[in-house]
């Protein structure tokens, strides 16, 4: 299927222009884009239901919009949104309706028709529901039944509009898996729209982005992730980050100048729950020292935290330690999350020792106190931390004279002096 120079929309309102794309058999193409960007309009035009304002959609050189509906239905199956009003119909009847373009005027199913219906129910995992009425199905089951109905048309192309909307998380994944199996296992060219970016990037063979009046095709999802334009189309004022490594979306923490500041010493996955808990309680969070290949580093940067980083597989440098100390002493709260310590990150242990030595209160948070660090006060969960909103916690209570600000100014010199013996 090939779309050439499509201009689509309704009446005078042009929704998308200059759309050219090719749909190959055996691939799952997912169309993503913000709501109301024109995903449905594009799919309807490809499916031949909506006449384009310009350009053409061709299958084997023939215009989709010039075909008779019966002929078109034999090569394109379509599943649209919305619950159809057929509550009293059984699953088998509904899937049987998919034989519409193949049966005679009375829609009496032949043996071959029945075989195809059986096949369609089997691939979609709906055989056991055959006698159920549509009104008795869950949303996920109904979606699979409607896909079976479209498959019963024996189409080469399957076009679905938002097949995962309104579904719960397991059903969403089930439907996506089904679509991928149909493409890879049965050679159908599947095109589906979704506004769920993470799902799309995980399942698609190709990604089509629809936004602000145009269409961009990425041959691989990895290309999409690395394209800053791609993320921009979904982002609300740069508030969202997409990790190219884990493909997960993260909402950036809002920076609030007046917020109390927390510094977290973590690593190897011990940090993220603490970051999130502190952010939830209104803290501005910084973390360090984290190797750039550490998962904590990934999460922290995705969350938009201030991070003191270190090159992968290098021991923590004095430079990094110095930066960390500087950040820590200007914080209102210092938290240690008991990361596993090895030769490369032992610097973090020294960092904590240094902070304790300076009389700063360091709180230990973790499921259990994995190992003792002298001077660290183990409190267990984040809830036990002395969290005081909008008020600076006196971190240097024992010395009495240090306020947060003075701590910052004096830290520079002291951290410089303490660095030398340790290195």
């Amino acid at each position, binding site marked *: 299927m090939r779309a050439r120079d499509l201009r689509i929309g309704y009446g005078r309102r042009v929704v998308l222009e200059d759309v050219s794309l090719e749909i190959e058999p055996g691939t799952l193409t997912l169309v993503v884009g913000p709501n109301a960007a024109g995903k449905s309009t594009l799919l309807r035009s490809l499916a031949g*239901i909506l006449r384009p304002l310009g350009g053409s959609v061709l299958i084997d050189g023939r215009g989709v919009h010039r075909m008779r509906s019966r002929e078109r*239905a034999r090569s394109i199956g379509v599943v649209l949104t919305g619950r159809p*009003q057929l509550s009293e*119909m059984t699953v088998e*009847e509904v899937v049987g*309706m998919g034989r519409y373009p193949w049966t005679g*005027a009375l829609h009496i199913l032949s043996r071959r028709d029945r075989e195809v219906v059986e096949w369609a129910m089997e691939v979609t995992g709906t055989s056991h529901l055959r006698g159920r009425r549509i009104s008795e199905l869950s949303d996920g089951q109904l979606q699979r039944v409607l896909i079976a109905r479209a498959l019963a*048309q024996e189409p080469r192309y399957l076009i679905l509009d938002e097949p995962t909307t309104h579904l719960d998380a397991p059903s969403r994944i089930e439907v996506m898996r089904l679509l991928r199996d149909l493409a890879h296992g049965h050679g159908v060219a599947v095109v589906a729209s979704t506004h769920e970016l993470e799902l799309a990037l995980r399942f698609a063979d190709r990604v089509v982005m629809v936004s602000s009046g145009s269409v961009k095709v990425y041959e691989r999802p990895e290309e999409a992730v690395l394209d800053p334009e791609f993320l921009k189309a979904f982002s609300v004022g740069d508030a969202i980050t997409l990790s190219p490594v884990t493909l997960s979306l993260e909402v950036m923490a809002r920076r609030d100048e007046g917020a109390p500041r927390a510094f977290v010493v973590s690593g190897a996955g011990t940090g993220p729950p603490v970051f999130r808990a502190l952010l939830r309680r209104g803290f501005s969070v910084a973390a360090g020292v984290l190797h750039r290949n550490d998962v904590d580093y990934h999460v922290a940067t995705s969350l938009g935290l201030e991070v003191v980083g270190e090159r992968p597989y290098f021991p923590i440098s004095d430079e990094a330690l110095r930066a960390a100390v500087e950040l820590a002493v200007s914080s209102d709260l210092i938290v240690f999350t008991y990361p596993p310590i090895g030769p490369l990150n032992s610097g973090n242990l020294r960092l904590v020792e240094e902070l304790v030595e300076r009389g700063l209160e360091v709180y230990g948070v973790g499921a259990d106190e994995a190992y003792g660090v002298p001077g660290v006060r183990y409190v267990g969960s984040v809830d036990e931390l002395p969290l005081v909103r909008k008020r600076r916690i006196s971190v240097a209570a024992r010395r009495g004279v240090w306020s947060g600000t003075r701590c910052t100014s004096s830290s520079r010199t002291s951290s410089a002096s303490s660095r030398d013996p340790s290195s």
Partner: protein
Amino acid sequence: MRAFALPLLLASLLASVLASTAIGSVRVPLDTVVKGLLGIRVEGLASTVIDLRLVRTVAALLSGASLGAAGAILQSLFRNPLADPFVLGISSGSSLAIAATLIAGTGLGLISSYDPQALYVAGALGAFAVSLAVVALSSLVRSSLGLVLVGVMLGYLASGLTTLLVVTSDAERIRAFTFWTLGTFSASKWSVLTPVLPLALASLIASSLVAKPLNALLFGEESAASMGVSLRASRVGAVAVSASLVSASVVVSGPVGFIGLAAPHAVRLLLRSEDNRVIVPLSAVFGANLAILSDIAARTLLSPIELPVTAITSLFGAPTIVLLVLRRWGFR
């Protein structure tokens, strides 16, 4: 239930035909009725009585069957449980066209006052025109209730015009078509019935052909189009078939209300199915049944006074509408 529905309905239809012929001011014994129906000579008064009652029974059968099938088609086409030839004003439009044809035709000497085929064609055109008007308006009025309101008003408009025609034409002809404004089986004649019967039968057969696209339309218009339905052709087809059915019924008995509404609902309840390939024909059988029973009630309830059959059908039809409205819009 599905397997038993057809034989059950046919058996009860036979029973009501027998009852309709037997019951009345003069009681005719059942065996005589059966003899009469089978064409065996029956002597004396009974023969006349049987013939008289048989005409109106067949009229009721034809009219009820047509209305039942038409109602099922319209409900499915408009995806509106309240659709019915009478409610949507299609019957009234048909009878207006018939009255106009009658006055114009006989006035100009083109047709005799009872040329049933000409009247049928006129009635079908009238029904078709109103149906198209309703289709056009249904795209503007999005709600089911709004559509019904539009239909009812169209119906009033048409019957108002019919009354106007009747009152302003000469007294001689008024008698000829007062019943087309009323809806009754009492004025039935073989001379009208016989020519219309094959037309009604053909329309009933045609109605089973529109069932397939109507089924697909249950998925919504766009989905139906993607399944291979040619939207315009199937819509025009469904409207044409229902118009033809309505016209056959109106020529024979005038606009009779609510049979087209109640029959499909009863059948759907009975079968628990949405499959129009079954619903449409069974609605015809059920509608015929309903019409005959209503006719029996109309002439026996206040005997010797005879009620117009619409008075009876309204008794079950109007509450059905109210019930459907209450159920659909959230009151229980």
